[in-house]
């Protein structure tokens, strides 16, 4: 064998691959730099994210990184849920006076807005140099921003590991009566059980859960508060909040029952927004390696191997159910189920 030829080919290949990766890492920057001048003229982007503090775009650190890379563009953050924001967007759009540029929400909530023609669909190639690496939904026009998990947690001071429920059905045990807490965000996961279990089993479970007289609130994270104080022994907590609480020393821990529902959230730019170019730039940056790193660090991001949140879930052995796989009909069913459950639980005292 001509080892000199092999070494030469290897060196040439290594040079080509190294050069290619260098050029690809320049590509996203080059791509975004094309958007920068028009975005800078606009000067700001008004971002709404119900998670609070802009966590969907990396939180305070992420926003600082964005501002450092693209000076002259400020990010103004608001934190309304879609039920409050979207009616306002509809009204503002009619008057041509939109005050918010973009939101982050899941497909069932976004679909009615798309049907009303209020969402600005995007060309993936304008946002990222690697569109094949990302998921775009709704005719490949809206990028998935992150995975979001709100699952069950328990108060470690009040509940021992031996007493923990092993399945969703175990929540119907009389010992949990009046000691469960759910909220508007946390009930999201249960709606998917309707798809997994079918009508009969699902409604039997929900009726049983209703009979447990859970502490219920429409506020997004109210269940978290109740679990932390011990008012509830088990309740729904977002994985991001759980991580922050544990760092602060709160007595809460993840309840490892399967499946854990992983929902996707989309970047939702509004049509005729006041700062369309800055919005596009922000979304493009969020899909860049720098943006993804910022989101993962903030506890947001995707639940895939190699990310912090995946590393937390993997050892628990739970089965993950990704909502990405839902069909449009299933999305509609999920949205419908939310309304039905809210009505059923609204009657709970």
């Amino acid at each position, binding site marked *: 064998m001509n080892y000199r030829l092999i070494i030469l080919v290897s060196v040439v290949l290594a040079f080509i691959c190294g050069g290619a990766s260098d050029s690809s890492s320049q590509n996203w920057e080059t791509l975004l730099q094309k958007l920068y001048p028009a975005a800078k003229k606009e000067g700001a982007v*008004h971002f709404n994210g*119900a*998670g*609070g*503090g802009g966590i969907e775009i990396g939180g*305070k650190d992420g926003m600082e990184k964005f501002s450092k890379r693209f000076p002259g563009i400020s*990010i*103004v*953050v*608001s*934190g*309304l*849920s879609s*039920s*409050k924001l*979207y*009616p*306002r967007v*509809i*009204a*503002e759009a*009619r*008057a*041509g*006076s939109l*005050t*918010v540029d973009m939101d982050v929400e899941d497909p069932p*909530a976004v679909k*009615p807005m798309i049907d009303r023609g209020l969402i600005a669909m995007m060309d993936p190639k304008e946002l990222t140099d690697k569109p094949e690496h990302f998921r775009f939904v709704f005719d490949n026009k809206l990028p998935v921003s992150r995975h979001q998990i709100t699952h069950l947690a328990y108060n470690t001071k009040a509940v021992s590991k031996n007493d923990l429920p092993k399945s969703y059905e175990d929540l119907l045990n009389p010992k949990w009566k009046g000691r469960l807490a759910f*909220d*508007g965000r946390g009930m999201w996961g249960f709606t998917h059980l309707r798809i997994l279990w079918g009508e009969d089993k699902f409604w039997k479970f929900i009726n049983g859960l209703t009979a447990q007289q859970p*502490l*219920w*609130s*429409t*506020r*997004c*994270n*109210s*269940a*978290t*508060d109740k679990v*932390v*104080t*011990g*008012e509830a022994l088990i309740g729904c907590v*977002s994985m991001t*909040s759980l991580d922050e*609480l544990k760092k*602060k*020393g*709160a007595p809460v821990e993840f309840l490892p029952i399967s499946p854990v529902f992983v929902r996707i959230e989309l970047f939702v730019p509004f049509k005729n927004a006041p700062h369309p170019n800055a919005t596009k730039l922000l979304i493009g940056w969020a899909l860049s390696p720098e943006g993804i790193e910022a989101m993962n660090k903030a506890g947001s991001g995707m639940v895939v191997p190699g990310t912090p949140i995946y590393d937390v879930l993997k050892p628990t052995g739970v089965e993950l159910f990704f909502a990405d796989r839902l069909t449009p009909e299933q999305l509609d069913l999920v*949205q419908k189920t*939310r*309304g039905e459950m*809210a009505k059923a639980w*609204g*009657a*709970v*005292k």
Partner: protein
Amino acid sequence: MDAAVNLTRFKWTQAFSAEKLIYLIPGAIVTYLVLPPLALLIMSSFRKTQDQLPIEAVPWTFANYLHVFTSAESYVLFQNSLTYALCTVVVASTVAVVLVWLIERSDMPHGDLCMSLVLIPLALPGLITAIGWSFLASPRVGVFNVVLRSLFGMDAAIGPLNIYSLAGIIFVSALSIIPSIVLMLSGAFRNFDPALEEASEASGASALRTQRSVTLPLLRPALMGAFIYNLADALDNFQIPSVLGLNAGIHVYSTKIYLATNPLSGLPDYGLASGYSMLLFLLAMGLIIAHQRTMQRQHNFAVVTGKGYRPRRVALGKWKYLAFSGVGLYLFLGAVCPLLVLIWTSLQPFFSMPSAEALARLTLSNYRALLDLGQFKAAITNTLVVSLAVATATMVLSSLTAWMAVRGRFRGSSIPDFLTFVNTAVPSVVFGLAIMLVYLSFPIVRIYGTIWIIIIALCTRYLSFSTRLMGGAVVQIHKELEEASEASGGSPWVTVFRITLPLLMPALLSGWLWVAVHTLREATIAVMLMTPANVVLSALVWEKFQQGGEHGLVAAMSVVIISISMTLTFFGRKVLLPRQN
């Protein structure tokens, strides 16, 4: 020809005299502020808006009213709402009258200090008061319950107190509105001429009988005005019933309307929300009629006359310290406890009950986080500008409106006053929506998304209170004072600035202070109209509370709001409203 021209000119001069312009301009402004949102509300109630907006092409329908008046939940809603509102105002009025009497008409010690302290709960937004009391009296983990169970050796895991009940909601709401009633009544009690009381006692009546038979009846317009206004306000109250009632399944009309406009899923049903709002509107109309009839007998209640007088204070004797303790008890429940809990929560990294372990976790991290919160600084500036602008504009407009209603000598002079009170019947949550839709539908006035839309909305909102307040004050000034000034050759402007205005000043300043502090704590309308450019502190607190899981940050912001409003209240009381001795 010259005579005809002169006659025409005379008629025009009469038609557009300065007096009429002074009456008509504020009347026109009030009409503009109140009528369009009302019109939109009425229109919405007859539209089938499932998944659509009322201004879109949707069918006309009576279905909303059928639901409001005939559905199974309507009876429960009606019962809950009336019970809640009546009990709240009865309890609050009783306590407020006692407090005002003790502070303004008795020799109870440290009256100035007591007045300042009694007003402190005014600085606590209803939302925050409710959160504080949920920490204090939550059935399982509330501080009071834990202490009581421990003190009395109770085995039960919950209780004895349950703040998540109708009684709990009434209790917290009453505590919350007592300062408002105190402010509404303090001017009237302070200006009361003691000559009538002296005459009564000289005739042999006891002090108690004199208060019951002479003082209180003469103060009836002020008392009735305060009662009726706060009854309508209680029906409209959303923040406290939402925090304490929703979890317990206790719904009142305001929370029902909120849920109709902010459903967990799907789009709001503005038609149904407007239907419920119209029901509240009708209830308030009944209150307005009762109030108007009381005002029509105004001349019988004039107690500030041309004769000089010096306010007299009743000697309490050995009862003064008991009275002072009673004031202290109200302060403890109405201000000290919620305030301490808020401060405690603001110094904790996550929400937790007081304990030795929690003491070791005290931290300023929530206050540091506030400085990192992007919208916080903008919110503070917006809040201060809005509060000052709303208070000033509202008192100017309401003074002119009240004067027009009481002293106007032409047909329709009481219409603006009527409109301001009618506006009270529109729930804040729907009023905010209506204002938003008005300025979106008519973008010729480009204030949507700015703080000006909030200023206009809150001015309109508080016109009712301030007009009632000024109306009560104007009623007490007998016409003979103005007639004496005119008879002495004083021009109308001299009469206004040297006689009327000084007499009205206590009520004016009380009202200004009330409006400024209420603006600071108002959250519902601010939330409805909130955009990234016009966020105020109360809306930011609400937003963070809605997100949940950030009680520490919410508590820290609340402490900041309370500090600002306490400073404003203390400054106002000391400088603007010095106590007369």
